């Protein structure tokens, strides 16, 4: 995430198609880390870009803002689904039958990770996902709106929270 790209993104915020062309692929891939369905990842990324275009956030780091909002939107989405599954489980007749690809997905490590990301603090989940995307400390600080000096400590807490929740759900591996 270099400054030149971000400057371009900031200028593009005035032109939705340009903003979309510049940012859509990156955001969709980022969101895909949190939601397993690729079409849903694309839709969430598109929604976030539209929101950005409409609201014109006064963020210094527009790419960081987009990343943070996109991950939050994805986390909200899987939380909504988890809530819905819980409601449905109370009413057997209304239970939705999982599609074959969902059944496969449930067995994969990725799904376990997503459940854990949705369960921990959104700031921690956002930090961990962006770190996995390769952002350095300066970029993480900018994206999350925190001081660069606090990123290491925040990451350590996020790591700990993630591991604790993962092991609580899935045992130590």
């Amino acid at each position, binding site marked *: 995430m270099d400054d030149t790209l971000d400057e371009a993104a900031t200028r593009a915020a005035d032109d939705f198609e340009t903003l979309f062309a510049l940012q*859509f692929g990156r955001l969709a891939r980022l969101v895909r880390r949190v939601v397993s369905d690729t079409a849903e990842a694309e839709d969430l990324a598109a*929604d976030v870009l539209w929101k950005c275009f409409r609201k014109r956030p006064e963020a210094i780091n527009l790419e960081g803002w987009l990343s943070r909002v996109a991950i939050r939107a994805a986390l909200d989405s899987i939380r909504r689904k988890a809530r819905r599954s819980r409601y449905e489980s109370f009413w057997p007749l209304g239970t939705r039958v999982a599609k074959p690809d969902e059944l496969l997905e449930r067995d994969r490590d990725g799904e376990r990770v997503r459940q854990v990301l949705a369960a921990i603090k959104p700031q921690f989940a956002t930090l961990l996902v962006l770190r996995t995307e390769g952002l350095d400390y300066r970029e993480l600080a900018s994206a999350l709106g925190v001081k660069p000096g606090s990123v290491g400590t925040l*990451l350590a807490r996020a790591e700990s929270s993630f591991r604790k929740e993962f092991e609580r759900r899935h045992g130590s591996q």
Partner: protein
Amino acid sequence: MALNETTPTWAHDRIAATDAPADWRPDAGAALERLTARRDRRRRRVRIAWQAVTAVVVVVALLASAPSVKLAAGRAWEVLFARDVSVLRVDIDRLPAAVRQALQANVNTDGLDAQSVASLDEASHRSGFTVRTVPSTLLPEAPKVSVISPLSAELTLRVDDLARAAQSVGVAADVVINPHWDGARLRVETSPFVLSEYGSTMLAQGRPLTIAMPPGFDMPAFVELAMRLLGYDAAQASALSQRVAAAPVMFLGVPPNAKVRVSEVSIGSQMGTLMRDADEGSLTLIWSTSDRLYVLTGPIDEQLALSVASTLE
């Protein structure tokens, strides 16, 4: 322990399992098309909400009262409820500036963003009334439910503005502008509205609109004036004024060139207003019961619309 830039992490190794498939390329074109479709659906919802609030931009001018249904609401206001609907052919955009200024209400649209809710119970809780649903034998899809917050519009009358408006449309010599109207505030409010989307067909429901005005305000006379300002001739304005004097009416503004056919239909003991939009191939039915105002809209035929309405009486 703070991590440094190069610390390999346990979480990082796990999260790497969420890497996208190597052959996946996000489809920007398809995503943009779906986004456009979602925005269009949202625009339809907003348009319906505007209709439900009435053509209030053309203002409270379009609302009338009947003494029998006025309720005392303290010293400052009289309140009445609008259940009947009438459609006016009005092109708001083409009205003279002086008319728009005289009849321009201050509309609070903060609530227009529909909020999705997880269940009908939540919708009932948020709206304050028990949400009614359409039997699955008529609309089989499970509804997506959302709630629009209350909306309001308020107009403060200015006699000078009304006089200028009358001059601008050449009716100054024909109309009466009561000097006591100066400063009078007229206010229209909606309850929360619950939107239930059954695929592309949507049912909106809320309580009847509330109209508040100063005690003793001569709404029929004001409606007659407003109709003249909106371009109706003296006979039409008088007829509309008399009609609305019999019962509070919610007016919907439809542009004169819109290919919309409007008719009145019977729904049990009530009358409803049916609008067929030839451009969009859709149908809108508006009707009310003693405690509810309904708007049903979508690509459905008249028979299905009436069947739905009859189950919600």
